[in-house]
C-alpha cells in the first residue's frame, strides 16, 4: 500500500507504545497524548479511518486550508481537523452533542460551531464562506447523497468532498454494497442546477467502522 502524504500537521507518532495518527491540540475525548501531540483514534473517527487506511484525501493542512464539516457531533473528528487546518465550520443539528462541541471550540479560535441542519444550507450560507477547500461529511442520516449535493455550493471547483457513507442510515434491510452503489450514483448524478460529483476513490472502512464506505470526490 502506498501511503499518500498525510496533511501537514498530521503525523504518525509513537504514543503510549503504539504508532498512531496524531495532531497538536488540547485533548478532547480522553485520547492518549505525548507533549502537545494527541492520538487520533480511527475507531472513533471516519476521517481518521480514511487517513489510516491510506486514502488519498487531498488534504494539505496549514492555516489557509478551509473546511466545512457536516455532522460534527461532539467534536471528536472536527477537533483534529481544526488542529491541522485553517478556518473550519462545524455544522451539527442535535443540541446535546453541540453542547460538548462548544468546549472543543473554546481552545480552537478558527473552529466555528453552527447549530444548523445540513439539509438546509441557506440557513448558514450567510456565515460559511464560498470556495472552501474541503467538505467533510459524516451525518449518518438518510439522504446522505442529497446532503452532499446541497452543500456542493460551498466547495471550490478544485475542492474535495470527503464523505463517510453509513449503509444502515439509508436502509437497514439492504445489502450495504447495494446501498453504497445507489448513494454513489446519486452523488454522480446530482441535479441540473447543482451539478454532481466525480468520485475519485472509495474504500470500505470496515476495519474501523462496520458497513461504512469512505469516499473522496470532487465537483463535476
Amino acid at each position, binding site marked *: 500500500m502506498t501511503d499518500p502524504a498525510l496533511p501537514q500537521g498530521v503525523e504518525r507518532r509513537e504514543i503510549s507504545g503504539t504508532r498512531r495518527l496524531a495532531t497538536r491540540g488540547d485533548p478532547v475525548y480522553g485520547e492518549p497524548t505525548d507533549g502537545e501531540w494527541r492520538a487520533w483514534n480511527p475507531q472513533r473517527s471516519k476521517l481518521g479511518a480514511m487517513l489510516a487506511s491510506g486514502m488519498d484525501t487531498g488534504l494539505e493542512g496549514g492555516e489557509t486550508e478551509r473546511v466545512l464539516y457536516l455532522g460534527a457531533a461532539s467534536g471528536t473528528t472536527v477537533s483534529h481537523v481544526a488542529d491541522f487546518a485553517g478556518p473550519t465550520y462545524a455544522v451539527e443539528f442535535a443540541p446535546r452533542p453541540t453542547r460538548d462541541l462548544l468546549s472543543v471550540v473554546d481552545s480552537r479560535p478558527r473552529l466555528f460551531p453552527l447549530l444548523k441542519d445540513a439539509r438546509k444550507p441557506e440557513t448558514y450560507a450567510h456565515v460559511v464562506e*464560498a470556495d472552501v477547500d474541503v467538505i467533510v461529511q459524516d451525518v449518518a442520516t438518510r439522504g446522505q447523497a442529497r446532503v452532499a449535493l446541497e452543500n456542493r455550493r*460551498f466547495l471550490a471547483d478544485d475542492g474535495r468532498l470527503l464523505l463517510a457513507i453509513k449503509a444502515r442510515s439509508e436502509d437497514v434491510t439492504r445489502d450495504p454494497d447495494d446501498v453504497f452503489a445507489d448513494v454513489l450514483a446519486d452523488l454522480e448524478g446530482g441535479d441540473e442546477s447543482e451539478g454532481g460529483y466525480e468520485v475519485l476513490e472509495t474504500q470500505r472502512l470496515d476495519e474501523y467502522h462496520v458497513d461504512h464506505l469512505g469516499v473522496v470526490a470532487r465537483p463535476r
Partner: protein
Amino acid sequence: MTDTDGWFADATRDDEEGLAAAVREGSATEPRDWPREAVEAGFAADEDEYYDTLHAATTAATHAAVTELEQADDRQLVHAVRAMDDCRRTANELAERLAEWAGTVDSEAASGIEYARDLAASGRLEGEPGAKPITSLAARVVDLADEADDLREYVERQTPAAAPNLAALAGPVLAARLISLAGGLESLAKKPSGTVQVLGAEDALFAHLRGHASSPKHGIIYTHDAVRGTRSEDRGSASRALAGKLSIAARVDHYSGDYRPELEAELVERIETIQARAEGGGGDDAETGGETDD
C-alpha cells in the same frame, strides 16, 4: 439583512448580541467570500480580526440556541403535554354537560366538541330559555378544545428537539406522554424496559395486584400502531419489542442526543417479523422462535 448579505451586514463588530442573532436567524441563498467582503466593507480590519469576531459570534449564537433548545426540553414538555390532556379532558366533560343542558331546548343536541362548535357559531338557540348561558358555555368548550390543539402543536414541535429518537419511534405526542409519566427524560432513560412497557397502566397494575385483573401487558404504548396493528395473541411480544426500542431511544436521547435513524428501521423490522407470525406461523423466523409469550 437580505438574502445576499453576510451575517455581519447589519451590525458593528462590538454588537455581540446583534451579531449572534444574525448568525442564528439570517440566511442567504449562496455563500460568498465573506471574509474579503467584511474587510472591504470596513467591518473588520483584516481577516484575522474577521475570524476572531466570527468565532465569538458563532460561539455565542450556538450557546444561546443550545440553551434554548435544552430548556425547551423535557420539563417544558411534561407540563405542556399534561396541560394538553387536561384541556382535552375538560373540554370533553364540559361538552357532555353542554349536551345535557342544550338538550332541554334543542332537539338536535349532541355531545361532543363538534356540536359545541356548531352551537357557538350559529347562535341558533336565540329566543329559547337559557340561550345566553348555553351559547356562552359552548364558546368556552370551543376555546378549550382549541387550546388543546395549540398545545398539541407545541408538543409536536418541541419533542423532536428534546428527544429526537423517542419522537421518531413513538411519535411526538406519545413520546411526550412517556416522558411525562416517567417524570422526565432522565428518569425514563433509567427505567428498565419492562417498566416502560407498563407505564400508564398503573391503574391496571394495581387492580392486578389487588387480585381483580390479569397482569397488564402494556401501558400507554398500546396506543402505538406497532401494538394496535398486531393481532391480540402477539401483542405481548409487540409491546415488549416496542418498549425495548423505546428504552434504547430514551437512553440515546438523554445521554448523547444523536439522532439514530436506524433505531426506527430496526423497530419496523422487528414488528414486521412478529406480525408475520400470523401468516404461516412464523416457522421461518429463527430469531423469535425461542421467545416465550405470556
